[in-house]
């Protein structure tokens, strides 16, 4: 008997938020914090906002990535700003868990060999492929690349791991436990995040977009995401962070 592969599900994207939105948010998983900001009424005093999301899903860890249809919808929408959280978790995907042979950055970390920032950028360079095509036909007046959330403290990562299916599955595949896996020190992760933010800024310049960095007010003294801006998983921020970034976006394009 022949088995037949089920047809791929057609993702049903929808704009969620204010009908007359002037700030349109479209991008990868960090978009969910913007939806929550709207849902919690944190955007009521600012510009009208809408987020392009998959209908019905609120779980950032279970979200599908944007496809061609998604970006066509994002570009077709009229608004003042198309604000894009492009990826942003590359440093976690590759380096959240510590290696048997540690490494460090020239100004961060205590042990292991120093790895050049340019080599780290090379690791996630491919994740920027498609960014210019995705927003090339945007009808919005401004295209903004939004800075993505800083790393969380070692303790917050440990607490958030059970709520991060991507990493739980990854650990299960290699027989590791969320309780005992070695976490890359926050100091190194902050350095990795900064390199990623620099790369985002360069990509923004390359495609003619505005880069809006994460303000220092969202970070602890050691550069981590302040707990009041954290969603209780490994990598995502919450509605308050999104509201903060929306204010930064408005200021940047004013």
């Amino acid at each position, binding site marked *: 008997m022949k088995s037949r592969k089920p047809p791929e599900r057609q993702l049903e994207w929808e704009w969620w938020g204010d009908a007359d939105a002037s700030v349109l948010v479209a991008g990868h998983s960090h978009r969910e914090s913007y939806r929550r900001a709207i849902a919690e009424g944190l955007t009521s005093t600012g510009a009208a906002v809408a987020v392009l999301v998959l209908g019905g899903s609120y779980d950032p860890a279970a979200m599908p990535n944007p496809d061609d249809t998604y970006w066509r919808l994002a570009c077709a929408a009229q608004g003042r700003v198309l604000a894009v959280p492009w990826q942003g978790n590359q440093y976690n995907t590759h380096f959240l868990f510590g290696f048997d*042979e540690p*490494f460090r950055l020239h100004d961060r970390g205590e042990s292991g060999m120093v790895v*050049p*920032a340019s080599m780290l950028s090379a690791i996630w360079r491919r994740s920027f492929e498609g960014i210019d095509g995705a927003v090339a036909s945007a009808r919005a007046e401004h295209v903004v690349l939004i800075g993505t959330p800083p790393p969380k403290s070692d303790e917050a990562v440990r607490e958030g791991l059970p709520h991060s299916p991507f990493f739980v599955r990854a650990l299960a595949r290699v027989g590791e436990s969320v309780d005992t896996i070695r976490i890359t020190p926050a100091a190194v992760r902050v350095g990795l995040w900064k390199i990623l933010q620099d790369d985002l800024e360069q990509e923004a310049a390359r495609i003619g977009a505005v880069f809006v960095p994460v303000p220092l007010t969202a970070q602890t003294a050691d550069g981590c995401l302040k707990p009041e801006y954290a969603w209780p998983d490994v990598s995502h921020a919450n509605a308050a962070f999104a509201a903060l970034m929306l204010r930064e976006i408005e200021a940047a394009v004013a």
Partner: protein
Amino acid sequence: MTSHPYRSQPDRAFWSRAVAKAFSPAETYTGPTPLLVKSDRIMSAGSCFASNLVPFLESAGFTYLRTEEPHPYFRRLPENLGYRNFTAAYGNIYTARQFLQLIDRAYGRFVPAEDRWYVDGTVVDPFRPGLRYPARSDAEFDVLTAQHLAAVRDGLESATVLVFTLGLTEAWRSSVDGAIYPACPGTISGEFDPARHEFHNFSASEVTDDLHAICDRLNEVNTGLRIILTVSPVPLVATATDAHVVVATTRSKAILRVAEARSSTRDPMSPTSRPTRSSVAPRRPTNSSNRIAARSALSRSKRS
């Protein structure tokens, strides 16, 4: 038939018997002991031959010393110009002076005046201008360079054998302090400035002096190190002299061969002679694994 000196010569002394027929590269080495033994930790530096021999050494079961490799997670990333083909990531070193200066930089004896170039938002190492992953700031450059030089020291101090391949006599150097660049500034990276960069074609005496100085420096940090000198057969890609490239190539190779011969014998009458003694430590009998190295000219230096 009269007797004459050629009557007692072995077959290897005759081109017709040793080259035209049944050529055996291993027989080109006639030293009393093997060049290498399996317990050796081999470091190499110089022009491309010094890296090309590495896969042959490793496939023959020898240990090629590597003191500067990318972190395991990053090894899948590509590199340029063979920087990963040597013990440390110094890349091709074409002249004896450049190698001498690398040793001196590693031990803090020489700090080049022009030690970095700023190119397109990166900080480029003039002595490794093709590195694919350059620093992005002065601070990062300083740390990465210090890490590299530490790996050079580690190699020099832990090797039991150094294979150094002489490649060129033509070089470009700083007119300020004589720092030798592996390539003319502006070719691989940086910008050529005639006010700061000048051409120099090393003489046999200069190369000999540099080789002696290299041996002396190495004897200070690794008294047991044996040195195998080779001369690369690869022709010049281009010459900066007025000569035809063939003429320039033959001049260069001839000078390097003379310098190698002078250095390996350390003529006691030479004004560059040092109190270093040459000796050959007993080794196991030659076997087929030694063939690659045996093609090369030999110099061993050991201070007892």
